[in-house]
């Protein structure tokens, strides 16, 4: 059995899906982030001055890019896998000799690709506003890929456990968005009172935003190595949990 063909089939299907509905998947982030750059970066940023030596516009660009990577890798997998489950076409995969890890990696790859593609669109838009030389491209890319992987996995688990369309919007609205805003996209944690600084350290998104910002502009509140370790730890845990759910057939088999 040639699993690479099955893998390619899933990934291609996933890419076609979000490209076919590009007005819902690729256009909105372009519009929203343009507004972020205009309002926060330009109008307000001009009055704020610099943070840790970077102009406010340069400071928020990495966070805004990574925020779109997070929300789109998550959204892609959660909505695609949930509708696959809801329309029961998951059965097409279950009857075929496709190992669970191929199903998982296929959907996760789809999420990573969408996340990175949206990240790239936002990065291109940011070129119109920001002006900095990339500090360390390898770190920026690694962070983006790890982040996309992590949130694709989270989206997958959400889709498996969800029993209604409401269940797939709860996490993005009530967990991801607040954590992203509190993840130091628009400010440095140094600016917070000490108690909030400590609490912020429990927010994984903070680590990723700072590592990504370090990669792009060389400014970070947090140790990069620690970020990679935390992210990798989350990825391993969520992968194992996803495989366990698939193995048990939770949410997809009677």
């Amino acid at each position: 059995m040639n699993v690479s063909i099955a893998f390619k089939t899933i990934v291609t299907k996933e890419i076609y899906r979000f490209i076919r509905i590009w007005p819902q998947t690729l256009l909105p982030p372009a519009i929203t982030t343009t507004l972020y750059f205009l309002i926060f970066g330009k109008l307000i940023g001009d009055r704020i001055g610099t943070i840790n030596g970077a102009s406010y516009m340069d400071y928020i660009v990495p966070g805004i890019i990574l925020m779109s990577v997070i929300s789109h890798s998550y959204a892609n997998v959660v909505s695609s896998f949930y509708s696959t489950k809801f329309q029961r076409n998951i059965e097409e995969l279950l009857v075929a000799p496709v190992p669970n890890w191929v199903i998982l990696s296929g959907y996760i790859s789809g999420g990573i690709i969408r996340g990175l593609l949206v990240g790239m669109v936002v990065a291109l838009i940011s070129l119109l506003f920001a002006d900095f030389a990339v500090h360390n491209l390898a770190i920026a890319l690694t962070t983006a890929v790890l982040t996309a992987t992590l949130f694709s996995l989270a989206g997958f688990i959400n889709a498996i456990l969800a029993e209604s369309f409401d269940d797939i919007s709860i996490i993005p609205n009530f967990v991801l968005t607040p954590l992203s805003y509190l993840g130091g996209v628009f400010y440095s944690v140094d600016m917070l009172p000490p108690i909030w600084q400590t609490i912020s350290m429990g927010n994984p998104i903070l680590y990723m935003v700072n590592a990504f910002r370090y990669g792009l502009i060389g400014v970070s509140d947090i140790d990069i190595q620690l970020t990679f370790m935390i992210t990798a730890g989350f990825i391993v845990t969520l992968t194992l949990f996803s495989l366990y759910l698939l193995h048990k057939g939770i949410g997809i088999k009677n």
Partner: protein
Amino acid sequence: MKALSLCNLRKTYSNGFEALKGIDLQVEVGDFFALLGPNGAGKSTAIGIISSLVTASSGSVSVFGHDLKTERDLAKSCIGLVPQEVNFNQFDTVKSIVLNQAGYYGLPRKLALQRVEYCLKQMDLWDKRDTISRRLSGGMKRRVMIARAMVHAPKLLILDEPTAGVDIEIRRSMWQLMQEVNAQGTTIILTTHYLEEAESLCRNIAIIDEGRIVEHSDMASLLARLHIEHFILDLAQPLTTAPAIDGCQIELVSDKVLNVAIPKEIGLNHLFSQLTDHNIQVMSLKNKTNRLEQLFMDLVTSK
């Protein structure tokens, strides 16, 4: 080796409902097999377990000698499934549905494209290949699922009520197609509520009722068990009372229609010579019910 062998298969759903209460079933290689039973009998549950969509509570399944637990992928590759309900992505085109399924079974792209064309043409869907499947009629959707099930040329094709809601013309062409596929060596398991369909297509049969097999034999010997045949006779002249003919039970349904129950050993010649003696002229004759239907009713109501 059997095409399919089920051993003491049980299924209790999470709500505690026991849908299968220990099923044993064998299907020979090359067979055209009917799996019958009333609504809720457990047919789709059994099919779900065989095709890995439902987890069995206990028991074993073996497909062409491959145990579903220990040689899962080999067993799966042998099976093509046409489920009872539409389960493809309704936003995909007909072609991509079938092509993706070929990919899941690991068919290389070139071969996959050939198979997709072949199966869609066989199902009379080639013209519809670029249509979004949501826009197809119910019968067409069913044919998409048959094409999808055949794309990897499975050795065992399982069809869960493929002809439900399909018009008679298409149903006929589906029967012909299933017979052709079977003649080419594919083993077929068919579920249907049209018993005349099962009677004319299938060689062997199992009847499930309330999660148990109540009958498992070949069609011919099952039908042979039917001792009494029922006929309806249309008469030329009206009658006021039913004629008495020894050996037969005759009932006057309306003034020109007779209902006749006749044991096999008596034969129709006897009936007609006696009717002629009574000066009764018969215009036409038909079977009262389908023969299998009669047996089926006996089996599933005789509890």
